[in-house]
């Protein structure tokens, strides 16, 4: 029957909420604004991204962390949610100790409460020499003694905001046109 027994079939998971017929929520702008950011030693990953970018007027951006050392780093993995409220839930924080971040991506946006939010995934080498990856906890991860370079692609015509997603039953970063954001603040 199955000519390709080794081929795993892609699974479609059932989520708790109502299916959203819009599968790709996208916004675009005429061009991205680019910055080279150096993450400041001793600061948390969150502060090292948020504060300098806020100073140049950037609150929504996609960033590439070009790798470097953290004096302390914590991350989570994403196993199935035992409560069934969502398909997966983040694990308890895992302390990787002094860590080399091999490569990372971080998205800067606004939380549901309007505060800066950093969502970061990265590949790391832990203090024990293990190669791991996952969802980095930006408040619990501290930049090591050498500044870490970051390429920032900032957005102007739209912003990224955390908004509750009924289908997955969790808050997620989503793009919104600027005028929509202003209306919600009015």
């Amino acid at each position, binding site marked *: 029957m199955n000519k390709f027994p080794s081929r795993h079939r*892609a699974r479609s998971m059932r989520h708790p909420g109502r299916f959203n017929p819009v599968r790709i929520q996208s916004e675009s*702008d005429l061009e991205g604004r680019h910055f080279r950011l150096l993450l400041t030693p001793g600061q948390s990953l969150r502060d090292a991204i948020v504060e300098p970018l806020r100073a140049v007027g950037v609150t929504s951006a996609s960033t590439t962390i070009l790798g470097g050392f953290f004096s302390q780093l914590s991350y989570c993995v994403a196993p199935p949610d035992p409560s069934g409220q969502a398909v997966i839930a983040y694990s308890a924080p*895992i302390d990787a100790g002094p860590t080399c971040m091999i490569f990372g991506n971080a998205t800067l946006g606004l939380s549901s409460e309007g505060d800066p939010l950093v969502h970061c995934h990265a590949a790391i080498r832990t203090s024990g020499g293990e190669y791991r990856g996952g*969802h980095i906890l930006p408040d619990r991860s501290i930049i090591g003694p050498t500044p870490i370079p970051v390429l920032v692609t900032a957005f102007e015509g739209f912003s990224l905001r955390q908004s509750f997603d009924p289908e997955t039953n969790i808050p997620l970063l*989503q793009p919104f046109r600027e005028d929509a954001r202003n209306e919600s603040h009015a």
Partner: protein
Amino acid sequence: MNLMPDQPGSVVEKGRMGRVAYARIAPNEDLVRGIEKLCLAEGFENAFVRGALGSLVDACVLANDGTEIHVSGPAVEIVSLAGEVRSKDGSVEASLSGVVADPSGIIHGGPFVSGGNPICMTFEVTLEEWLPEA
């Protein structure tokens, strides 16, 4: 996959970055085809991935011998992604390579197989349009 340049002497392509797009792609959409559809939605003919993170139900990447490596989730986190989208003969094709972390945090990687990488919770991607010089 054809890894050779289209024509002799065509290994360097001059161009510049154009528009920028950010998308959130929803659960059960395929990673590779989702990025291709994003380019169709935004009208990008050619693009580079500028940043991406999210999760997959399971991951499927190409092994060195051409077989497929299956990484079981959920969720398999995308921790690194590089790639491009090219248009040719009326279709768009995304070529994506990256590193993923399985539910215990162990990392795996390679070129993502189209159709084999369903998104688990969300996938965030930033593309920059690439405008080759005519």
